[in-house]
């Protein structure tokens, strides 16, 4: 877990004047499940394709297992890729698809059969060896693509939006399976995705990309709870943003004045999160907000600082396990709140038009610089 299998060093890729990837440096550790996450056009796929060798960086260096990849063609790189379209060869049956990578590199026939069968068993397709790709479902084709790449025993498996073509139910199932498979085969996985749920549920570490550069690299938990900037906070999960201004800093607390909340003091973790001054932004996750009808006593536990506000419920979306509410504050800021429907009658407690109190732990509030 401690040695990097992929080192990307100051890599830039330009297409004409556009910098698709702009001075990116990152390390992927051995046996890690690493995700490149970002909106479309952020350069994540370009970066993955450079690792696979389909294009070369305009400047910078990519090392795989300590070896510079600059003049190494895709067929000679110790990585294999699962394509977004799966690219399962339509003119070969499942067995020949999986065996293809071994066949073209001169592996002996009995070995091919044995290893392909093992790989197919691993992805649960043992009974489909003689099927043609057009007789398979999307999920099965993806498994073929997975087996075809894994049978090569790559040092790194690259996955380009592997779940985007699957329906919601199957996607959830494949998320679990991919994570399980990665732990099982002990190969480093690098996945490209625009879906934060996918990245959060599967990856050990996530690099959030925007406009060709990496904004933050962290574990899913850290990324969600301690996003480095407004973009990351907004991109990963839902978040309420409140504009404010730093008015002072006292000990481990930072004072911020906002139009909505007045003056609030936020515990300031300090350390590596830098200095705060001038205009900042407060961020609070919808599920961390307590909501109650106005007039109902709130009985917060003692010894904790709470931030409080008022508003009126203006919209409501019911999702079964939870409900999303939009609360409008007095200065007409919209506020998202999520409640768990932990009881059958949870939905009856509140309704559109109700005046409500909002409160959350001061320590759950994020202060973001930009």
């Amino acid at each position, binding site marked *: 877990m401690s040695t990097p299998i992929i080192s990307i060093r100051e890599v830039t890729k330009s297409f004409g004047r556009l910098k698709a990837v702009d001075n990116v440096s990152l390390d992927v550790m051995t046996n890690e499940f690493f995700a490149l996450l970002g909106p479309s056009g952020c350069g994540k796929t370009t970066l993955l394709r450079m690792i696979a060798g389909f294009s070369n960086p305009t400047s910078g260096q990519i090392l795989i297992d300590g070896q510079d990849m600059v003049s190494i063609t895709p067929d000679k790189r110790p*990585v*294999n*890729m699962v394509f977004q379209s799966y690219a399962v060869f339509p*003119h070969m049956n499942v067995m020949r698809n999986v065996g*293809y990578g071994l066949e*073209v*590199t001169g592996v002996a026939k009995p070995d091919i059969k044995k290893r392909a069968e093992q790989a197919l068993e691993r992805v649960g397709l043992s009974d489909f060896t003689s099927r043609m790709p057009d007789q398979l479902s999307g999920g099965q084709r993806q498994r073929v693509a997975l087996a075809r790449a894994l049978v090569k025993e790559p040092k790194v498996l690259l996955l380009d939006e592997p779940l985007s073509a699957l329906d919601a139910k199957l996607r959830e199932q494949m998320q679990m399976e991919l994570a399980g498979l990665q732990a099982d085969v002990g190969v480093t996985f690098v996945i490209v995705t625009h879906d934060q749920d996918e990245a959060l549920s599967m990856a050990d570490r996530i690099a959030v990309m925007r406009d060709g550069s990496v904004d933050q690299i962290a574990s899913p938990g850290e990324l969600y709870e301690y996003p480095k900037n407004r973009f990351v906070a907004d991109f990963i999960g839902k978040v309420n943003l409140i504009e404010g201004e730093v008015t002072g800093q006292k000990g481990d607390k930072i004072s911020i004045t906002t139009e909505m909340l007045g003056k609030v003091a936020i515990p300031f973790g300090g350390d590596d999160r830098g200095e705060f001054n001038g205009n900042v932004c407060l961020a609070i996750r919808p599920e961390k907000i307590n909501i109650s009808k106005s007039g109902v006593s709130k009985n917060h536990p003692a010894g904790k600082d709470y931030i409080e506000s008022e508003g009126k419920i203006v919209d409501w979306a019911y999702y079964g396990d939870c409900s999303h509410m939009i609360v409008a504050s007095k200065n007409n800021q919209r506020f998202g709140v999520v409640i768990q429907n932990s009881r059958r009658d949870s939905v009856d407690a509140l309704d559109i038009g109700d005046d409500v109190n909002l409160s959350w732990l001061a320590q759950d509030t994020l202060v973001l610089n930009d």
Partner: protein
Amino acid sequence: MENWNENKSTFWIFALPGTFWLVVFFMIPLAIIWALSFGEQVSLTKTEVTGTLEHYIRALGDPVYLKIIWKSIWMSALATFFCLLIAYPIAFLISFVRGRLKMILLAAVILPFWINLLIRTYALIAVFRSRGFVNFGLEWVYKTLAMDRLFGPFQPLELLYNNGAVILGLIYVFMPFMVLPLYASIERLDKSYLEASLDLGASQFKTFWRVSVPLTMPGIVSGIILVFIPMLGSFLIPDLLGGTNAQMIGNVIERQFKAANNYPFGAALSFLLMYATFAALALRAWHASRSKGNDV
């Protein structure tokens, strides 16, 4: 129109012009020629359909005709093969370049269609005849290298009026018909198949033979059919470029209908050629269905 069964009038409005064209200008003339092939010449201008097989017997019995059919087949096959060999890289290139350049290259392939076949063929004559551009060029090189002092004066190469000239002419004229279907199928080919093959460790060469060729086979087959069949029946190109030395079956058939005024025999030869073509197509279809059955 989800289902033409539910909207018959619409279906017929769309189908009628095409059907009319096909029946009146293709099926009926073809049927007439077919009937004529069983006919007898009763006078200079009159032919009667008597059901005789004598023309077929004559065509199959006289080795001259079988030989010229066979020669036409191998010349067309050779020209088709070279067409494929040259057209595939061109089609590949066009499908990989983007934007303006793609349009320009496609236009360059289609451009010859705008020029009359006769003019293009005469242009070839101007290039290849004894005092044509190729021989001028060769002569210039020959003199520049001062070889005329060693080996005597330059002897122009006889490039025209032989089988080679006809094959070259066929390749030149039919090339676009090979490039276009190939381009269509390569353009449709999902390039990630090629990347996947490279990614799995196959070299460019292996990727070409194991992935590109099988996946563009429909384009290759339609290109071959589109080129081979009209080559087989061509008479203008062998007439102009081959002279009397390199006749193809098309020339013989043309002569039966014109100079020899023997419609029944010309019709019989035409249909023999057609039967051979049908047999080849049927063989291919049978082969395709059989190999597909083996795969599954």
